């Protein structure tokens, strides 16, 4: 195929310019989104992006160069430029860079897709958002919003070590929200989560959400929240819904186990990690109910792929087993530096960005309970769901989350609604206090994970279920 030829030319040019290793990704991506507000379409956009990104290693210095021109001549120039940049890195070179040895992979992979999302007529998609936001508006929302997004990405990867891989990944997702203006503040309810649900699936995922069926409920809940009592401040038993659990995992586990952070490569911006490699295999991260896996093979989850952007085949592995930290998200270079034997978690946000360690699907294995059982077993506590705000420190320890909605839990029953629920804690203390975990797992998709300089947006997945935590500080306010 022409794309493989272009990538091969770029790799060869980098080698000819002095690189000891080089790889190249040709990518073509189509993106479509539509937003609606109060029963009317607000925006429709269709974007196309195509180009090649080349990575070269000269001595122990890395270089990366990207161009949108997919001619072989432009690819060769890109390869040469990548090698020149890598040579400049040698002016302040670190210890010798090596790559974790992996077999050279060849293959093709496509994500599952029953209904091509780009083939669904825009008018049908628009009708869905108009209907859902119109219904929310009719049921009391001051501002009813809806959004869907589609990414259709094809990529071709070649390395100087013999990789030759092509992939076709289609991602779809959608969500709605209802905002009600209160006295000096706003209240919002969303469905199915605060940014919608996303996966490596076709339009069938959006159909399965049945947005319109939930439009009235979220508007009514948002209006009820305006006059609901504030979440009380203090220390209590906290029950989190599955959607909020997904973000809790993302922020306080997923980022913390990224090997580049642990090695200090993100120290100046995204931050480091409270984890130390010396603790790998022994550190108690959480309670024995806590089993977290790194699994890019989950069909349809947002962080799934066939091969990562270094050509490593997707494989499932443990991150936390019975509460003990046992695995990291790693790439070939970071794994070699750390002396670890696994990579496979490197991806780039498009062809013009450098591949880096990213979450795939990082999630909790199911527990033995149900949400109803958790509530029934709780004498005094607060149930919170649907994320509204999130903040965590640069070591991924000290977090504070706000949720859209809360409920009192008294004597095993869900009680009155609470507004502005927030909770805060320290990661390992929090996870060690988890004493009940539901089996009702959903692989939530997060399409907005920011990391890196220049900034990259990652798509990650998080299997999660409702859970209960003890002695958590709630009701933090300004």
């Amino acid at each position, binding site marked *: 195929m022409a794309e493989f030829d272009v990538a091969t030319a770029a790799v060869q040019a980098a080698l000819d310019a002095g690189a000891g290793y080089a790889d190249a990704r040709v990518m073509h991506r189509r993106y479509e989104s539509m*937003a609606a507000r109060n029963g009317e*379409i*607000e*925006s*429709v*956009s*269709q974007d*196309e992006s*195509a*180009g090649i990104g080349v990575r070269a290693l000269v001595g122990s*210095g*890395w*270089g*990366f*160069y*990207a*161009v*949108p021109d997919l001619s072989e001549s432009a690819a060769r120039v890109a390869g040469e430029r990548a090698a*020149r*940049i*890598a040579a*400049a*890195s040698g*002016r*302040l*070179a*670190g210890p010798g860079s090596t790559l974790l040895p992996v077999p050279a992979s060849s293959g093709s992979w496509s994500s599952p897709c029953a209904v091509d999302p780009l083939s669904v007529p*825009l008018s049908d998609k*628009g009708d869905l958002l108009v209907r859902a936001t119109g219904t929310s508006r009719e049921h009391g929302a*001051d*501002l009813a919003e809806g*959004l869907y997004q589609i990414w259709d990405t094809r990529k071709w990867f070649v390395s100087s070590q013999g990789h030759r891989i092509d992939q076709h990944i289609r991602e779809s997702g959608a969500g709605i929200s209802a905002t009600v*203006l209160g006295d*000096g*503040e*706003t209240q919002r309810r969303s469905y199915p989560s605060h940014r919608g649900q996303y996966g490596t699936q076709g339009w069938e995922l959006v159909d399965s959400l049945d947005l319109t069926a939930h439009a009235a409920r979220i508007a009514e809940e948002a209006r009820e929240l305006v006059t609901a009592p504030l979440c009380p401040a203090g220390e209590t038993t906290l029950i989190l819904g599955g959607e909020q659990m997904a973000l809790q995992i993302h922020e306080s586990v997923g980022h913390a186990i990224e090997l580049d952070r642990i090695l*200090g*490569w993100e*120290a*100046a911006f995204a931050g480091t990690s409270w984890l130390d490699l010396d603790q790998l295999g022994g550190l108690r991260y959480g309670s024995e109910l806590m089993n977290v896996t790194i699994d890019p093979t989950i069909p349809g989850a947002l962080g799934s792929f066939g091969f990562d952007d270094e050509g490593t085949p997707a494989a499932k592995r443990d991150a936390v087993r019975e509460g003990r930290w046992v695995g990291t998200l790693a790439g070939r270079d970071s794994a070699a530096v750390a002396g670890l034997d696994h990579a496979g978690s490197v991806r780039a946000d498009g062809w*013009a960005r*450098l591949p880096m360690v990213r979450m795939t699907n990082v999630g909790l294995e199911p527990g033995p309970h149900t949400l109803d059982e958790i509530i029934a077993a709780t004498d005094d506590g607060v149930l919170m769901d649907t994320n509204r*705000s*999130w*903040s*965590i*420190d*640069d070591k991924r320890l*000290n977090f*504070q989350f*706000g949720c859209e909605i809360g409920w009192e839990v008294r004597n095993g029953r869900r009680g009155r609604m609470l507004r*502005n629920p*927030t909770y*805060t804690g320290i990661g390992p*203390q929090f996870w060690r206090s988890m004493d009940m975990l539901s089996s009702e797992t959903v692989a939530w998709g997060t399409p907005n994970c920011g990391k890196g*300089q*220049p900034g990259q947006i990652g798509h990650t997945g998080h299997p999660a279920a409702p859970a209960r935590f003890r002695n958590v500080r709630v009701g*933090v*306010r*300004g």
Partner: protein
Amino acid sequence: MASPLDLAGRVVDVVRQVAGPGAEAEVGTEYAELALTRFANSFIHQNMADALTTIRLRLHLDGRTATGSSTVVSADGVRDLVERTVAAVRHCPPDPGWPGLTPPTAVAEGGNWDEETAAAGPEQRAERVREFVETAGGLEAAGYCRTGQRHGAFANTAGHSVTGRSTEAAMDGIARCGGADGVARLGSFRLADLFGNVLGARASVKARAGVAPVELPPGRYEVVLEPTAVADLLQNLATYGFNGKAYNEQRSFAVPGEQQFDRSVTLVDDALARPVLPFDAEGARRAPVRLVEHGVTRTVAHDRRTAAEAGTSSTGHAVPGGAAVGPVPLHLGLAPTTAPSGATRPGEISGPAEVSGPVVDADAAALVAQLRRGLLVTDLWYTRVLDPRSLVVTGLTRNGVWLVEDGEVTTAVQNFRFTQSYPQALAPGAVLGIGRHPVVQSHTFSNAWWSAPPLRLASWNFTGGASG
């Protein structure tokens, strides 16, 4: 390679061919070369550059609107972009809020441009990184040096066209010492304004002064926020408060005509003083806009659509994709106490010979000297909005906090979590001092550039410490 203006004109021509004379279209094109040299553990570990041409098309046809973009600039690519946007617009519902196109208007072409910055390669960036690392004096260092150039153009079917170019450069780095980090950060349109040795020295002094921090109880403290922290206030005020879409939807705190801030607060968005193009995504000319004057909110940022909804005129703040995010004043600056003597100078981050101890510069030191008991805060991190209308924000301090007693820095303090309404922090009577020299800062490769002097505030609500 076609110039951005030629390319924009070509797209307009294709729109007329495909959609007919009744179509209203606006086209923005940009050719950008952006490069970033990143270092960690005191060596360069990531080093990238790209060269990218982007076309953005917004089309209004038969009362309906759609947008599209592409990096494929061949004749086939342009035609494909136009045809799929025309196809999309025919499936869209009516757009009664279409504000029309920017009419032919005189826009001063040009922009802040520096040949040396445009020509800078990885060797020049590596040299500044080496200076930063060497002057960190053996401390572990991390950060980046970046350079870039943009050539942009805009054309629409109403006959309006404009072109411009700009360069940009920035350094942002930390030094690390015994678990404490110190930071230095500066941006400009000239790479020559950035001295790796000055920035590295400043970061290392801060890091060394941050060793062995004590944990103080949460609560309200008087604070001096250094420019790195003040930039976060500006970003959140711009995004959630002075955004015309948020204002129209009543999600903003802003009430024009009301004294919402202390009298000492004047906020001006001034793209012409930043390393950006001199026109917005709708081709409107950019000009300084006084959003807050002596504490009184005067206006919010508008593009043509939000301006029409609000019954006013565009302020030149349209951004790509603005229908979703709204117009944001991305070049917001807090006016200094007295007018600065000129453009941003590297000396505004003072070397250790000029200011001893962890305070960033003489400007901030003057505010610290007025503090009887409070905290010196270097940086705010991971700030997120709990409620957009009250603009209550939670986040953490980072890169150095110190206790100040009787005007002297006495001890390093562990990081805090805070939960604070930003407008309340700047409310009448709450601002006790503003510095004289703003420092220009930017996020990587974004078009947002904040201009922030240090700031002394009567109260900041710290709601948690390092232990929870």
